[in-house]
């Protein structure tokens, strides 16, 4: 038994976030059954978690090579403003591809600042976040409302569809392509990766671009969910995304254990907890304390202490 445990220790540890999510789900299902399990509420959970899941999937690529991205929220605001203004001049038919392309370019720019400017990724991301936040505030005079044709997409079916497509592609890229494999190898040891003939900068840059694509998709989802780009678009997304990804079981130092599922499980834990505590009518003063304790428990159980550096 003990030997079996030793052999499968890592696999079991990897399951903790899923077990945590299941426990939370079970707890709220039992204690707030009708309300928590109502179709309205379940679709709320998906609806609320979707944006964090999508940005989290992109962040997994950045974290897989042992980096952090703090740009998500600001980059979403920037992506939204640029795409909206461009589409206003051309046509709103291009809103979806526009968001993706602009998001990818923002990711590319952040990556270039990090890779070629030799600036730590979290600083490059922070700069991008400030830039995006500033531009969204400056341009707030210009009303950027979601065109009517896209409002009908604000359904749980659409969110699930987008999430499925993004997840399947991301899992495939992370698991079966050189992009995922090399990024994980860079996360384990960038010098070894470089000596093995891998173009480290190139693959890091690709990871930033993938992150940019997910930021673009999240921006579009925000546009249809919030109905507009405002000066608060993307507020706090970077923090929520990082928390979600980490509690979902993504190693802080990236490497071979990096997995896309961390973003999905983590975002669900984050959202289910928030949702369930409100349904419980938890004392407002204690909600953050409880969230903090639950996150701490999950992190203590899941974090990989052997690979906890945050340098790249």
């Amino acid at each position: 038994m003990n030997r079996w445990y030793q052999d499968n220790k890592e696999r079991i540890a990897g399951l903790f976030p899923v077990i945590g999510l299941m426990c939370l789900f079970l707890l709220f299902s039992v204690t707030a059954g009708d309300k928590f399990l109502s179709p309205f509420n379940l679709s709320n959970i998906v609806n609320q978690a979707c944006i964090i899941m999508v940005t989290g999937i992109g962040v997994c690529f950045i974290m897989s090579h042992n980096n952090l991205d703090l740009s998500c929220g600001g980059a979403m605001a920037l992506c939204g403003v640029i795409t909206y203004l461009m589409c206003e001049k051309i046509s709103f038919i291009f809103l979806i591809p526009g968001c993706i392309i602009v998001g990818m370019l923002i990711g590319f720019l952040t990556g270039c600042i990090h890779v070629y400017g030799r600036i730590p990724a979290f600083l490059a991301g922070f700069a991008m976040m400030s830039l995006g936040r500033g531009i969204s505030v400056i341009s707030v005079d210009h009303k950027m409302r979601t065109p009517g044709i896209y409002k009908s997409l604000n359904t749980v079916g659409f969110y699930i569809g987008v999430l499925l497509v993004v997840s399947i592609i991301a899992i495939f890229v992370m698991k079966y392509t050189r992009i995922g494999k090399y990024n994980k190898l860079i996360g384990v040891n960038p010098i070894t990766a470089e000596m093995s003939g891998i173009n480290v900068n190139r693959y890091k840059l690709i990871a930033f671009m993938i992150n940019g694509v997910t930021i673009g998709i999240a921006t579009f989802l925000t546009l249809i969910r919030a109905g507009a780009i405002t000066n608060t678009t993307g507020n706090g997304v970077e923090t929520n995304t990082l928390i979600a990804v980490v509690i979902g079981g993504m190693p802080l130092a990236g490497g071979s254990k990096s997995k896309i599922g961390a973003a999905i499980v983590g975002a669900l834990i984050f959202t289910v907890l928030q949702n369930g505590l409100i349904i419980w009518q938890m004392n407002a003063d204690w909600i953050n304390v409880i969230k903090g304790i639950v996150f701490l428990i999950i992190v203590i159980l899941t974090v990989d202490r052997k690979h906890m550096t945050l340098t790249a």
Partner: protein
Amino acid sequence: MTAKLVKKVLCTALVTVSLGIFTGCSSDKAADPGQSEKAAETTERKTEEEAEASGETVGEVHKIGVILYGRDDNMGAAIYSYLNHAAEVLKNVELVWDIGAFDVDAQISSTQNLIAAGCEGIICLPMSDDTVAQMSDICEQANVYFSLMFRDITDETIRNDVYQNPYFLGFVREDDAAVAKAMVKELADAGVTHMGVQVMASGNPLSVRNDGMYEGAEEYGITIDAEFPVTSSGDVNGNNTYIQNTLDSYPDVQAIYLTSASIGLGEGAANLLGSLSDPGSVKLASFDVFDGMSDAFDNEILVCAAGGVNPDALFSFMVLYNAVDGNRLSEDVTELYQNFLLVTSSEECKLFEKYVGNTEYQIYTDEQIKNLAVRFNPNVTLKDYEDLMDLYSLEWLQENEH
């Protein structure tokens, strides 16, 4: 081995603490459903007995959700206190609080979560018109009433859409522009000719304060030397840095005008101006009141502070309560306006602190609150609401002391 042990002990301790909190802090609907039903039943029976004793019947208990940015400043704490008190007085209403939502997306999530929690009505202090637009759609689909406090809808398109929603009850807000202008007059009367101003971001429903401030500056002949934004996260240090830079770059500036001094910005600014080599040489006018105003008046730093609009929340809540209780006051959208209190001296400040600054003091008596509810006062109309709101002033607060 030791590390493993520490990890195990830590986990056990955390799990125990969290379980304790789960069971101790949740409402009577939490924990074991059987137990919670019993607890709810007991509470209900007790409430009914109490109600019978006081000659009132409770009937169905309604749930109303409140979306609030926070409760650690004076306004947030007051809203929390007033609404909880009103719920206690009215007896047949239970509040579900969602505190901390600071942006459109978070407020949409809050709306969804409160509806899922079974709320029949939602009262919100929206962060922007876009929140209201989305909230309106969600509430209409769920047949849930909603009303706004401290804000109206500035965007015409959104206003027209939301006004069509039969579940939108209306709003209570203040004439920010007029008070913003009056504050500039106070500065001009104090001899200020140059000022640096903190401006509200365009698009923010409170940006009308900028308009009043600019109009006042033009009318009363004050030059605006520098402008700086309200920090998006309400960061006190960031705000003080802006003020410091303004004073360093524009030595002629004689006053700082804050269009938003909530969440500690007022205290921070007063402290900074009080720490200058010549305290009182740079005056402060503050939209929103803050802790330590009395000292700032005594030290001749603060010229005026506008605030005291906290009861706004109560009136918006009562409009919502009546609708949820099946006694909608008007089929049209209700638009009510609350007076500001402009505090201009240390004496007024003491009065303000006594009645408004002390969030545990209930401005309106239980009787006044009940009189706003159709259940207790079937003849109440919106005119009664307006009349009571018009009385609101520092003098009235003294007369109404209870």
